[in-house]
């Protein structure tokens, strides 16, 4: 039972959950899944359900072998590079659309149209349009994450409270002051959320993008494992990407926790 002086619980309905409790709650479902999987692996052949221990062993090998780790890092760099490009271009488009209704009217349908094109189609287009693996991959990453990034940034820009914008404007700031003292702090939460969301999308697209002829990277390795019917290898490589996404999400959450301490925390959940 939480005593009267204990800090208010973060998770509604879980009054006794301390930091240990919370960690346990995160790990428990995964442990259960792993246990079921391990049990299944004693019954089914290893090319269907390889033992968890083997998968983890292979994953550890990838992380500790310089050459293999390099391939993971190549994929990571492609993901972050594409996202950075989409963020910059999306930020520019969002600023234009936020400041001019006409631009917004003209660009929104186009972006929505782009959003409907499957990643695999972009792979085909990129192969025909561009030479060089990295250029193709960058193009695919950019074009698949750009629309969502732009819409999310535009939304963040448009949600800046009008009241506050008028208060700031009443002091007649310069453009730069308006941006650095109001726009940036007001849209930052939206930017970080957009990064989290798009990171998930990008990590799924990047392995497809690597089919354009990359001779390294997680996508390339996955294809190899498929040809060898190596289930443990396929899972070990997949785990690398998942770990990467988790790591970055965790880093963003840490930034949020530090940067948004000013926010009120309600004791009662909505």
């Amino acid at each position, binding site marked *: 039972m939480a005593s009267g002086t204990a800090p208010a619980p973060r998770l509604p309905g879980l009054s006794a959950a301390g930091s240990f409790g919370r960690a346990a709650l995160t790990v428990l479902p995964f442990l259960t899944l792993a246990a079921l999987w391990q049990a299944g692996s004693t019954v089914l052949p290893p090319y269907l359900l390889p033992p968890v221990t083997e998968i983890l062993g292979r994953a550890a090998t990838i992380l500790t072998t310089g050459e293999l780790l390099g391939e993971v890092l190549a994929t990571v760099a492609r993901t972050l590079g594409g996202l950075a490009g989409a963020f910059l271009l999306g930020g520019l488009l969002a600023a234009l659309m936020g400041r001019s209704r006409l631009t917004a009217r003209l660009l929104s349908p186009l972006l929505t149209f782009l959003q409907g094109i499957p990643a695999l189609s972009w792979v085909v287009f990129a192969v025909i349009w561009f030479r060089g693996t990295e250029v193709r991959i960058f193009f695919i990453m950019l074009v698949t994450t750009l629309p969502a990034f732009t819409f999310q940034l535009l939304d963040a820009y448009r949600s800046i409270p009008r*009241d506050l914008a*008028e*208060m*700031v*404007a*009443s*002091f*007649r700031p310069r453009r730069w002051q308006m941006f650095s003292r109001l726009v940036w702090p007001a849209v930052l939460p939206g930017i970080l959320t957009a990064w989290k969301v798009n990171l998930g999308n990008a990590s799924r697209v990047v392995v497809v993008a690597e089919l354009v002829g990359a001779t390294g990277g997680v996508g390339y390795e996955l294809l190899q494992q498929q040809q060898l019917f190596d289930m443990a290898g396929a899972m070990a490589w997949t785990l690398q990407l998942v770990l990467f996404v988790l790591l970055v999400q965790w880093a963003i959450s840490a930034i949020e926790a530090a940067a948004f301490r*000013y*926010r009120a925390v309600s004791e009662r959940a909505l």
Partner: protein
Amino acid sequence: MPEVFDQAPPARQAGPAEIRFEGVSKWYGGSRESGFLAVDAVDLEVRRGELVALLGKTGCGKSTLFNMIAGLQAPSAGTLRVQGHDPFRDFAALRGHISIVFQNDRLLPWRNALDNAAFGLEMMDVPKAERHAKARHWLARLGLHGHEADYPHALSGGMRQRVAIARAFATEAPIMLCDEPFSALDEITASRLRGEFSELVRETGRTAVFITHSIGEALEIGSRIVVLQRPARIAYEATMAGAGEAERTQIRARIRETLAL
């Protein structure tokens, strides 16, 4: 009944015109006929050193008048000049010349009380040490000593409003616009601040326009009282400077009458 107080204030207290409305109208959407008319051909002159109390029923266009003086909205018709400038177009010319206490606090949630109070000075490029000293001074005068590091969400409504007042006062702008600044405060604090405010305006020769819903407040601090009808248009005007007890009673009655129309 002689209408001596309905005329322009006597010349002896009149400085140059700081704010001048000439036939200013404001409508939202469409034209004067098809849109929503909020301000209807207002002629008003506020001279340096005056403290004009603006009274009027809710929704009569008082905040709209303020927004036009502040340069946040442009008049739909007529001319408005603040210190000779068009407040909407000559954006940079009036930097540091106008400060506003808005009807709601409008604090930046990511800044603590001190940095919110120093915000106007920051926009005027006042160095950090100096603006913090001024902000601290005003926070303390408003009874917020010890709360400098608090974020807005941890302050009460009245405390937030006081931070907003500190933000406006700290800039020492020659023109002050206050939109019911004390309505969120308890009567004791409000009355103390009212006194300090009118003293400040008088001492420093500032010009202030002050919106209020309270006739008592208007009579207490206004050097001139302007009553608006809906849509905003001057319905009654009285100069308080030099008015004796009997005149005050008469003015109070006239304001009541006008507001009841």
